[in-house]
């Protein structure tokens, strides 16, 4: 307890010190660069692999959610349970979904209960950019928690530095297969010189009853049941610019969904009536100020409220059905600063304090722990920016303490984790770069891991991971048809120890969580990008990604699973995206493929999940309807070869489907 207070005091001290500094300073010459810079990240000289999707690419792929978009990144495994409402989690390089941090407009989104974020629930319509860092984020001016993940997915919904002179309104309407209807609207405006606002919202509904091939009888088709989903999303963003180098950003987010949970197909007895509703709200503020020409300070705060209701009206084991209600809250404060030292170095310091709590609000027979988690994460790093060599060394201190109402609280965590990265450009023109990085990280057990009734285990330790990456990146400008090309190849080795796994005891209805797993992954991610010369108004770009991944279960050398590939992990996977513009017409053909996988550890025919490939086509033709009205009708055809495939066994994916829509800018 005493220690707890000491950290709070220390944290307040950081604030107390940083605030007067902010006020004391005036001038600035440092550019206001953040993680969400509009300028594309230079992924040639990056010290860790960075992949980026811009708005014009995001809108051409997938079905309006982040999970569909990130399938196009290499080294990424999206577990997709199918349909609009199906769970979609992202793991990078076999680290497990709990290692993927998601930053939404600069601050982490967290689900302390599940320990992973369902990216199917985040819409892409309002996003400008998605970035994936397969390792440590290089930017030093971020909340400390941004460095506490194995990989970071940074979502940027707006950039207030967009100079808007007058009110801008965008309205869009989409419809498509399986009863999809999706209206959205956005208004950006200024009040006075310093205030910029943006309001945006969307509604989405799909009945989700897509047809799939019946498992028991390949000649028959059945429709997915209880797969409907309805969502409402509202966002308000505000930026107050005191001046160019002193800005306050506030964001309010509301998301509400109601959906069916169709579950996996159970042969001979397919039945489903479970429902889930989510209500997620957060309010966040970020204040960034540049001090003198060499110091920047970022103060952030966030409050998150999450309410989840799970219902099974046909739950046969009790007379009144089953209802679970969970309330999750997070209070978050963060202070970060970076400072240029001499001309070569940048020092970054950040410290976050946040509290997570979980309460169960339904009638429970067994007392619920109602855990409250106190986290203190601090990060310090030094970056050297030489002409030919860039290097960074950093440490992250993770401190976690928990309190519960009943039962035992989880064991506290105190860990120091280092990260190192290095890039070297051997050639004069900086168009070839070699990179090397190392990162060690922990994943604290989630509330579900710790306190789930009878299953949870409060003596769990955090998982530990180590990541090594060695890569080469280059780009070249050509005189011929191919205007320029870039290539990145990274090889990696990841090790996860003390992996938390659910293990049944005595029968399949009694499970417990244990730190018994160990995973050794090595692989290769390659990316090629070609841009061709404009010929007769044709402008084309081709991106090809390929991933090789060997992820071996090395938990127990006495087990038959020793050194077998992890379930659902394809050895080969990849994506391609071909984008063409001809005059006004925008065309895109993109595709994803995955080699076969096994649903369970044993590499036997019975566990085989077949390889699949899925292609989509997008076409849009923007035009000026009148002086102030700009329209962009589009059509998006998904799974054009009408393939029946599965990402997860017995969760059939939709076959051919389409979307039609129009976006109007006023």
């Amino acid at each position, binding site marked *: 307890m005493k220690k707890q207070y000491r950290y709070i005091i220390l944290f307040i001290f950081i604030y107390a010190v940083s605030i007067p500094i902010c006020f004391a300073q005036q001038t600035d010459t440092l550019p206001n660069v953040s993680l969400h810079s509009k300028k594309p990240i230079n992924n040639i000289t990056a010290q860790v692999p960075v992949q980026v999707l811009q708005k014009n690419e995001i809108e051409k792929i997938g079905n309006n959610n982040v999970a569909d978009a990130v399938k196009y990144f290499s080294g990424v495994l999206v577990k997709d349970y199918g349909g609009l409402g199906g769970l979609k989690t992202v793991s990078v390089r076999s680290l497990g979904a709990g290692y993927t941090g998601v930053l939404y407009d600069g601050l982490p989104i967290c689900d302390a209960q599940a320990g992973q974020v369902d990216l199917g629930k985040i819409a892409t319509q309002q996003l400008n950019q998605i970035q994936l860092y397969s390792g440590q984020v290089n930017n030093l001016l971020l909340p400390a928690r941004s460095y506490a993940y194995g990989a970071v997915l940074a979502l940027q919904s707006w950039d207030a530095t967009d100079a808007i002179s007058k009110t801008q309104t965008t309205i869009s309407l989409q419809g498509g297969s399986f009863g999809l209807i999706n209206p959205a609207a956005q208004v950006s405006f200024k009040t006075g010189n310093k205030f910029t606002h943006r309001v945006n919202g969307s509604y989405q509904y799909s009945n989700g009853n897509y047809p799939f091939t019946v*498992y*028991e009888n390949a000649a028959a088709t059945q429709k997915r049941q209880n797969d409907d989903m309805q969502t409402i999303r509202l966002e308000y963003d505000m930026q107050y610019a005191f001046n160019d180098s002193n800005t306050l950003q506030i964001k309010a987010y509301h998301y509400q969904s109601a959906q069916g949970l169709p*579950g*996996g*197909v*159970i*042969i*001979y*007895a397919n*039945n489903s009536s479970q429902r889930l509703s989510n209500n997620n709200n957060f309010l966040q503020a970020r204040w960034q100020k540049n001090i003198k020409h060499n110091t920047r300070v970022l103060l952030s705060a966030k409050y998150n409220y999450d309410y989840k209701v799970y219902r099974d009206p*046909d*739950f*046969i*084991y*009790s*007379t009144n059905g*089953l209802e679970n209600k969970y309330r999750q809250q997070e209070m978050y404060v963060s202070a970060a600063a970076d400072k240029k030292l001499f001309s070569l170095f940048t020092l970054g310091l950040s410290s976050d304090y946040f509290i997570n709590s979980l309460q169960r609000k339904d009638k429970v*027979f*067994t*007392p619920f722990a109602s855990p409250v988690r106190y986290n203190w994460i601090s990060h310090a790093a030094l970056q050297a920016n030489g002409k030919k060599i860039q290097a960074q060394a950093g440490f992250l201190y993770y401190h976690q303490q928990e309190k519960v109402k009943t039962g035992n609280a989880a064991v506290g965590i105190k860990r120091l984790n280092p990260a190192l990265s290095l890039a070297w450009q051997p050639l004069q023109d900086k168009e070839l770069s070699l990179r090397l990085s190392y990162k060690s990280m922990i994943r604290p057990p989630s509330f579900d891991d710790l306190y789930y009734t*009878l299953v949870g285990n409060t003596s769990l330790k955090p998982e530990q991971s180590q990541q090594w990456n060695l890569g080469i990146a280059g780009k070249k400008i050509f005189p011929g048809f191919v205007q320029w090309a870039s290539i990145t190849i990274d090889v990696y080795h990841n090790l996860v120890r003390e992996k938390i796994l659910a*293990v*049944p*005891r*005595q*029968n*399949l209805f*009694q499970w417990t969580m244990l730190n018994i797993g160990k995973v050794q992954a090595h692989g290769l991610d390659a990316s090629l990008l070609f841009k061709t010369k404009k010929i007769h108004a044709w402008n084309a770009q081709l991106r090809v990604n390929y991933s090789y991944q060997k992820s071996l279960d090395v938990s*127990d050398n006495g*087990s*038959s*699973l020793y050194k077998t590939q992890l*379930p659902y992990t394809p050895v080969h996977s990849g994506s391609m995206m071909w984008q063409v513009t001809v005059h006004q017409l925008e065309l895109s053909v993109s595709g994803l493929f995955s080699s076969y996988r096994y*649903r*369970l*550890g*044993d590499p*036997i*025919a*019975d*566990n085989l999940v077949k390889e699949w490939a899925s292609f989509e086509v997008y076409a849009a033709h923007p035009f000026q309807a009148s002086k102030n009205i700009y329209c962009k009708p589009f059509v998006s055809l998904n799974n054009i070869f009408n393939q029946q495939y599965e990402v997860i*066994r*017995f969760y059939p994916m939709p076959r051919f489907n389409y979307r039609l829509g129009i976006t109007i800018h006023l």
Partner: protein
Amino acid sequence: MKKNFLLFSVLFALAFTSCSKNETPTPPQNEPAKGLYVLSEGSFGQNNSKLGLYNINNSQFTGNYFVQQNPSFPLGLGDTGNDLLLYGGKLYIVMNVSSYVMVVNPVNGKFIDSISFRTSAGLPKYPRNAAAYSNYIFVTSSDGTVSAIDTLSLAITHSIPVGINAEGIVAANNKLYVTNSGPFTAGYDSTVSIIDPVSFNETQRMVVGKNPVGITSDEAGNIYISCQGDYTTHGPKLVKLNTATLSITKIADTATSVIKYFNGYIYALGSYYGSPYPRKLSLTDFSAMSSNFITDGTVVVSPYNITIDPQSEDVYISDAKNYVSAGEVFCFDKTGKKKFSFSTSPGVSPSKIAFTR
């Protein structure tokens, strides 16, 4: 020894005479087993239950015997095979999540019939365990009913309401005893339902202990019930019930899950609490004869079920290993020394075993 053979012969003769004339006679139990049917539960939601057949003569195991013998069922049995019962020349496979009972000819593994388990509203009943009595198979279901299947028509003729989450079932003293576990009822259920197999009614419900699951009977008309407790204030218990007087004659604080009575002992596996080893318990005070039934150092990673061949007195222990890859079945002699073992691949989480003779 001889006495026991005699006893079994008598018991089986009794069971035999109670069968209807039209039933294929069950071979007497005193012939040595020729084969073992092994039901592997599979993993929940993976539709990968397997019925395998082990040939004792040539030590061959056919892991996916049901599909091999029934090409019209390429996907096999479905999800979570919970119980296996050989009775009256038919093999009954209780499929929990797929919610039906599969009836198979034990001679060749061929499909005979499948019996759907649905509530009046069409919802799955999730059948759990089966016991035979006279011309009927009685099957417990999680919706709190026991269904009686006529072994001739293979139709459900009666549905008898019992407690919520009916689990184990055993025939003793001309009645059927059903454990009502009720884990989703406030404070758990703690009763055993007694069913009259002639009138197809629940005649009585007795309190035995919190969360009763495993149940077994002896020749003297006693039943033994493994109570799991509520995992907080009420600990696990092993309870002995005299079916003649309907009184509890013994209670011990022993954590068990699967319990099988054989020849004056109870063979037991641990539960959420309790021993990780299979144990042989004394009937006098339920104490373990030794901490581990296995005496030759053989390691069974996750003991999942115990089946005893009354003819050879061999003890078969199903090992679920890590519950996600192929399991193993071990055969031990009565002194706990390993005789043989085989992998149940592709069967995951092997549990129930039935003998063909």
